[in-house]
């Protein structure tokens, strides 16, 4: 790969919409779901390329994914160093201008550290890493990221994290609720919000949220690893198709 944005030349096997979108996937040293993000986007018939962490110019992009992994080894604190990288300044500018940014797992941690999303991710309640499929309940469909999943929809997607316990103080939570910033919650197979369905102890079972303006979102589960039934689930596609729908509508 090179230091500049690289457009994948793989021709997609199918197109899910008439317009082919261009996603940028941020690549920090230690990112490890970057390939999975690219694969998911291409599976859906769109294009994706890497954004090297030293990059300051993003080029012409429709949306940005901040992938999972252990950026900079997660030394100090998950996401704490990544937020200082040059590319994050550019990502913040992109978000400031209303661009869609989705942070997944470590990407969610980074967006919180960078102040693009409220709250923080702390160590799992179990103090252990957790890798398993979970059910996510969609809180509302008024966000670009949930527009293809009506309120109450259950999505089956994997988690894989050691620091995924979402925390925000009561005041912040109230504000988030007022702004409808909570997007996904951990739930049972029946959609109930019960403690045993919460894999990491997140406050109010929160799995993912969005920014006040709604264009930046983050979640601990991995929708990009759930875009094909062959690997266990294609529910993750419904999240990405929300992004696609939003961008196609708005253009």
């Amino acid at each position, binding site marked *: 790969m090179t230091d500049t944005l690289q457009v994948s030349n*793989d021709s997609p096997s199918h197109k899910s919409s008439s317009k082919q979108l261009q996603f940028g996937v941020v690549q920090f040293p*230690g990112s490890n779901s970057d390939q999975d993000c*690219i694969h*998911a986007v291409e599976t859906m018939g769109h294009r994706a390329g890497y954004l090297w962490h030293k990059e300051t110019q993003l080029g012409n992009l429709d949306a940005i994914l901040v992938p999972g992994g252990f950026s900079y080894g997660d030394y100090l604190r998950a996401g704490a160093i990544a937020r200082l990288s040059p590319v994050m300044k550019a990502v913040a500018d992109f978000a400031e201008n209303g661009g869609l940014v989705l942070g997944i797992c470590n990407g969610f941690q980074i967006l919180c550290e960078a102040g693009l999303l409220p709250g923080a991710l702390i160590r799992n309640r179990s103090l252990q890493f957790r890798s398993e*499929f979970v059910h996510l309940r969609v809180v509302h469909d008024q966000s670009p990221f949930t527009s293809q999943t009506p309120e109450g929809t259950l999505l*089956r997607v994997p988690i894989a994290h050691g620091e995924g316990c979402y925390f925000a103080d009561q005041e912040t939570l109230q504000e988030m609720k007022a702004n409808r910033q909570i997007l996904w919650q951990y739930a049972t197979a029946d959609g109930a919000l019960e403690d045993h*369905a919460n*894999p990491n102890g997140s406050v109010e079972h929160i799995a993912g949220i969005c920014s006040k303006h709604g264009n930046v979102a983050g979640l601990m589960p991995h929708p990009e690893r759930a875009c094909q039934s062959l*690997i266990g689930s294609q529910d993750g596609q419904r999240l990405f198709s929300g992004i696609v729908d939003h961008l196609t509508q708005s253009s």
Partner: protein
Amino acid sequence: MPESPITPALIQQHNLTPEEYQLILEQLGREPNLTELGIFSVMWSEHCSYKNTRPLLKGFPTRTPRVLVPAGEENAGVIDIGDGLAVAFKIESHNHPSAVEPFQGAATGVGGIIRDIFTMGARPVCAINSLRFGNLDSAEVRRLFRGVVAGIGHYGNCFGIPTVAGEVFFDESYEGNPLVNAFCLGVLRHEQIARGAAKGIGNPVFYVGPATGRDGLAGAAFASQDLTEESASQQRGAVQVGDPFMEKLCMEACLELLATGAVAGIQDMGAAGLTCSTCETAARGGTGIEIELNKVPQRAPDMTPYEIMLSESQERMLIIVHKGREDEVKRIFDKWDLPWSEIGMVADHGRMIVRNHGITVADLPAAKLADEAPIYHREAVQPAYLETTRQWRPDQIHDTQDPESDLMALLQSPSIASKNWVFRQYDYTVRNGTVVKPGSDAAVIRIKKDSLPDLPEDAPNRHAEVPEKFLAMSVDGNGSYVYLDPYEGGKSAVVEAARNLACSGAVPLGTTDNLNFGNPHHPELFWQLKEAVRGLADACTHFEAPVTGGNVSLYNQNPRGAIDPTPTVAMVGLIEKPEHITTQWFKDAEDVIILLGEAVDAQDACQGLGGSAYLKLKHGLKTGLPPRCHLDREKSLHGALRGWIAQGIVKSAHDCSEGGLAVALAECCISGEKARHDPHLIGATINLMGQEGLRLDSLLFGESQGRIILTVPQAFQGKCLEQAKILGIPAQVIGTTGGDHLSIQVQDKSYRWSVGQLHDGWFNSIHRIMDA
């Protein structure tokens, strides 16, 4: 610098015998200095030289037309999987470091095996592991278990490699000497195979990766001694500290560099660090090598040449670059912010010359050092205990009166219970390739274009489509069987791995094995090793699953004696089509359950109870003759199963192993899982009427080999039985799926379990012990 004189005590401290020292004197024609003595001691350790096992390992089959790089030639073997693609895989132990410091010991075991794979030019795409611990009722064992699992998870999760399968057994023989065998598999194109040879006289030698410290000093030598009570405290310094983040960067940088074509040879610094990597690359290249230690990045002040040469600091690589292309190394390693240093060059004199600030501190013949370690043909004597264990027969115990409790107890026993407590700490979904996650007979992964290392910018096939392929893998080995009959036990390990692959729909491609045994100087322990290797070799030959590499770990002893001899066998297989991928759990109600193979092996005097989990759990015995392996019968059974899978009539297939038929049936009912706290449970009604005259414990819990439980839709029942008859494979309908109970009728008695309760006992058993 003042040098210590070479005294007999110093020689002994280096684990060299007086005879070996004589050989060193002959090879050198002079006395070695301390640095040279250290270099000999690590190169001639069992870990590096296989001096005690090399004659035995010659019995392994190593070649088939698919083998591109055979065992012993490089860091890992490479096997063709068609369409110009290949896989590199290997298993390696980190037993002694894990006994001393479980978290770092296990973590660096994973790091070491990942390095072996990308050193071959392959992108590592999945990991599996095989673990053994003492009984979990000991707090110390729980500490080791917790630490090892966390260490494996830490390294693999951070690196970004899915850990997709494994096995864990608990037995008192492993107390104080856990086994940690880590496996890694990587994918590459045929033309991307890299070599660990120092080729091209005058080519520069680069050191890349983090600086060298005093950690892991002489780990290879440490791994080749008995573990003693003092070793834990004295040898903590021999355990390395791992940094998976650094290794991830190092891997990406190495693969990027390999794609440029600037690399003439590449070798990781694993056991025996700089020593082993320099002299092995020179030996393989038929060249010599010269290095300057002053240029080696150093983490600690005032390191001696001895320390620098023997350090096992992790995540370091040695790269030989075509002269004139040094800038490409610098460009790529700078991009990844990784330290690099040009430390020497390839020479034509066949020697390994080490200088420090220009002064020669070691001058040794590279090829002799690497390839001419002494070879020992150790004495082998059949162990005395076998006289007793072979006499045991089932009539010495009462048949079971309470199979309902027995099944529950077996499912809750940690060796049989669900290992979700373990694998939920491992990221198994990263890389978007895990088709069958941990918890079925074999894991299955999908190979796709991004599984491969990048090609050079100007390669004509850089943007070519890559056909998706599916690989299955399983790791197996039953120490009790091997203890009671090393030859049969060795065969069983291979056969069970092959059977697990068949149950997933795969054809075996090759095998990698880890031989975990006791002190080879002990004739009875050496006999175990010799016989087990013979069994492994015979079975691998039979299944055309060549051994492509592996590892030998001897001296696995604690103060009370040796561990059960434990070869672990990891087998990799290929599945042609995604629709052939098969899992072990029942899928739907109203399917027909067929048992393939004889319910109890009629030729087995112990009726499948010898060495069984049931005998140990219920009667506290580890005795008898373990189940026999009939290689021909197994092979035709596996072939037939794959045939039915290819016809599309098999909905589930599960092999019968530890715990026998009843445990296997229960696992079919309860092991499916949709998500957290969302199991896929399905009952079954079983009738074993046709088994008159058999002991009930043998029928339900005996471990006769060669049995598979499969389900087919009712419409295909006749076809399946008919074809089995033609193929001469015993097959009988034993029941149907459905309901929320498992009920088993044997003659006039019926036993019944709620699948919810079975699942709870099986699924939560290890949680209840570990999180209590």
